[in-house]
């Protein structure tokens, strides 16, 4: 019984350690854009953001005018680069903010 308990404790510890390591390897950025009101309009920005170094995933939230980026933790997103992409697509850049949580766990009202 003591052996079984010890085995599960070890598995849980390793799992927690591994999960923590994975979470520590990524961060999230939110890009706020004004003027984007249809799905077709979002594609030009999404395509360019996906090409940036360290960007692993881009999620578009059309309702709130936001792009959520999952980014390698070693990369720091440049506000100048992102704002240029937004402006070149014909829209207005409102800000770039770093988040520890992905979009699904963030408060929309931010």
């Amino acid at each position, binding site marked *: 019984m003591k052996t079984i308990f010890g085995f599960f404790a070890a598995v849980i510890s390793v799992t927690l350690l591994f999960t923590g390591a994975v979470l520590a390897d990524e961060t999230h950025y939110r890009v706020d854009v004004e003027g984007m009101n*249809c*799905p*077709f*309009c*979002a594609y030009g920005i999404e395509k360019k953001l996906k090409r940036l170094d360290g960007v692993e995933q881009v999620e*578009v939230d*059309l309702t709130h005018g936001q792009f959520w980026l999952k980014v390698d933790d070693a990369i720091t997103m440049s506000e100048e680069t992102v704002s240029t992409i937004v402006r070149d697509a*014909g829209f207005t850049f409102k800000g770039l903010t770093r988040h520890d949580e992905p979009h699904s766990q963030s408060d929309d009202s931010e």
Partner: protein
Amino acid sequence: MSSVRCSIRFALLLLFANGTSAAPITFNTALPVAKGEFINRELLILVRSDDAVRNLDVTALASVLGYGINGDLAIFGMLPYVNKEMQVTVGGARVRRSSKGFGDASMFARYTFFKQNASNHTFRIAAFGGVKAPTGDDNETDTLGRLPTPLQSGSGSWDGFGGVVSTYQTLAFEIDAQLSYTAKGKANDFEGGNELRLDGSFQYRLLPRTLSRGTPAFVYAVIEANVLHGSRNRRFGNPDQNSGGTSIFLSPGLQYVNKRLILEGSIQLPVSQDLNGTALENDYVARLGFRWNF
């Protein structure tokens, strides 16, 4: 001769078969094309016109390519493939004449000189201008000789056009308005009448009824109005009394829009056609097509 009027109008319809974002089906928009991005639009256009003794059917596939120079400036090129068939009753006999081939190519630029972006809407005004080049064959013949100018695949003339277009877009709806002018050139002793055109479009999002996170595909109901005024054509320097006039059309349609693709269709119906002389009236103009980002 009256078919000339119909053909000129058809050329004008093709001129604004450009493609950008979710936008009007029968004319332009002020919405942007992102820098370095291409947009392709393919549009099938069916035009039917007839009266007691004549009928003209035109089928065209218009291919449009748009490219974003920057967030405010975009350029477009359009090349149609056209198939025209006219049947006339002469002395109780039916005479059929037709042509098919690539038509006249158009190129134009559009610059957004005013834009107001906010969290839930955008308002833009853009100017555009371009030329239609005589790339289509304007000297086709059949067993009866040279085809009349309206039946040729190309006009043979260089035409210039320009105008102003504005767009107000929210997540729920979009309104577009355009004022444009086309100046016709002369070729083969024929000069088409210049055209003044006013267009309006209202697009209302039917689906999804409510928006949540993400980027759902939209379905829009579209209703458009087009007012066209054309001056008389001139042949050998003399005005053609059976050409020119004013027409008003209404075009209901549907658009499906996702991030990379737009599917669309509309039917343009005449509300009023106050044409000079015996100019041939349009019965309908049907459009079916798609646009995609790449």
